[in-house]
């Protein structure tokens, strides 16, 4: 797969990359308003298979709303989201290839780790859901707690179970909202290995995080969302980690956005 062309200016909101095949994930001029407030305003991104977009931004920038729009959890006020060329809000089946991992566990506390992951596997039509659940838990190094109710697990272990739930169906698009929350070093390593393997297998990742190092380590594209708009969007290769941190601070404190 050739490297996609990525907009190289702060005006990236209106420029779309071109791909021969439909991008794994594409948002066109996406807008979502809550009353008079535009949480997401004219955002366009495109990710080819195997790409990872690291999305940074201050609190309230619209990152989580954008992720919910990309996952089909929210309907956009304007614009559209396509997964492998199909509109995500047209048919629930389009969401079959989408996974979601959040800083909230998205788990049922009364169910065991295995039951939670197997429930997600069944909803995604995964054959032999119990075995798939155990394999996913094993991948996140939490299989030894498979039959423990989630409410009895520590926050970090819950996050590992949540990650297993998000990847049990081997998604082609994975949406990650602060996925390292609560994870210890071993858990973070297991998650990074899993994400790297998924990307190597052709999954497109969108990683929302406040931690620049964490995001830049996985990214092939880097973007900054500020007040609902993409204030910065560059290929990772064009981003110098040394100079990006002060640039990011400028962007989100409005000094560089003017």
């Amino acid at each position, binding site marked *: 797969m050739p490297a996609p062309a990525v907009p190289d200016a702060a005006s990236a909101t209106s420029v779309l990359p071109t791909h021969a095949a439909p991008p794994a994930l594409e948002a066109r001029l996406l807008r979502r308003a*809550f009353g008079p407030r535009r949480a997401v305003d004219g955002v366009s991104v495109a990710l080819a298979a195997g790409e990872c977009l690291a999305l940074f931004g201050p609190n309230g920038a619209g990152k989580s709303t954008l992720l*919910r729009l990309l*996952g*089909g*959890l*929210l*309907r956009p006020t304007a614009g559209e989201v396509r*997964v*492998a060329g*199909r509109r995500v809000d047209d048919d*629930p*089946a*389009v*969401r*079959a*290839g*989408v*996974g*979601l991992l*959040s800083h*909230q*566990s*998205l*788990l*049922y*506390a*009364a*169910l065991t780790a295995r*039951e939670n992951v197997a*429930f*997600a596997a*069944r*909803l*995604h*039509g*995964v*054959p032999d859901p119990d075995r798939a659940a155990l394999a996913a838990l094993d991948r996140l190094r939490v299989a030894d707690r498979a039959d423990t*109710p989630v409410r009895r697990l520590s926050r970090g272990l819950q996050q590992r179970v949540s990650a297993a*739930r*998000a990847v049990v*169906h*081997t998604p*082609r698009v994975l949406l990650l909202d602060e996925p390292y929350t609560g994870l210890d070093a071993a858990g973070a390593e297991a998650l990074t290995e899993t994400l790297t393997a998924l990307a190597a297998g052709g999954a497109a990742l969108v990683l929302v995080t406040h931690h620049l190092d964490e995001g830049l380590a996985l990214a092939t594209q880097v973007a900054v969302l500020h007040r609902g708009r993409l204030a910065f969007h560059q290929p990772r290769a064009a981003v110098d980690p040394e100079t990006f941190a002060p640039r990011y601070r400028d962007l989100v404190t409005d000094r560089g956005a003017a």
Partner: protein
Amino acid sequence: MTAPGVTAPGVLATAWLVARKDLTIEFRTRSAFLAAVTFALLAVVIFRFSWDPTAVNALDLAPGVLWTIFVFSGLLGLHRSFGVEQADRAVDALLAAPVSREAVFLGKALANLGFVTAVQCVTVPAVALFYDLPARGGLLPALLGVAVLAAVGLVAVGTLFSAMTVNTRLAELLLPMLALPFFVPIVTPAALATARLLAGRPLAEVAPMLRLLGSFDLVFLVACTLAFPFTLEE
């Protein structure tokens, strides 16, 4: 998109998965069931001790008591229905799955129907015992039949309003305020049918109420299923 041969479950299969998950959670925690049954039994006892048998006949009072208890004990479970999904935002994973919102609604309603029916199975014998209701053959199953038929409409409306109010600050207050007016067309024929059954009237006299109940069940089930996806937008 997905691996070859992998297909997401259909509407009925999804509804069953969601219902089974909800009932498993309720079976493990028993929080809503115990609260509803305790409320129902306490209400039966309170109504019993505030009743003057010389002033009002038991057969005249029992239908009202029964349906008051059904409605309010049912609301306890209905309120919890979406509370389970909101606790750790599990609802987000459910909505991100490749299943229709309508199927999720039917699953939640099916679980609520199981919950309300279980509460009714405890309440009907309790009312029969405390009000010394006639022990005619087939009366108890007939009463339960009416109760379950009415429960379909009640849970359809209650599940929808539970989804609508769960994110609000006054959910416990808003759910009954919104749902109770819609319960009236279901509770009225159900209470009338219950009264006639208790009075030993023939089934032919009860049939029009059952038909009315069935019609409202159908209308509420279809309308609430279609309206449900819109309640999920923030």
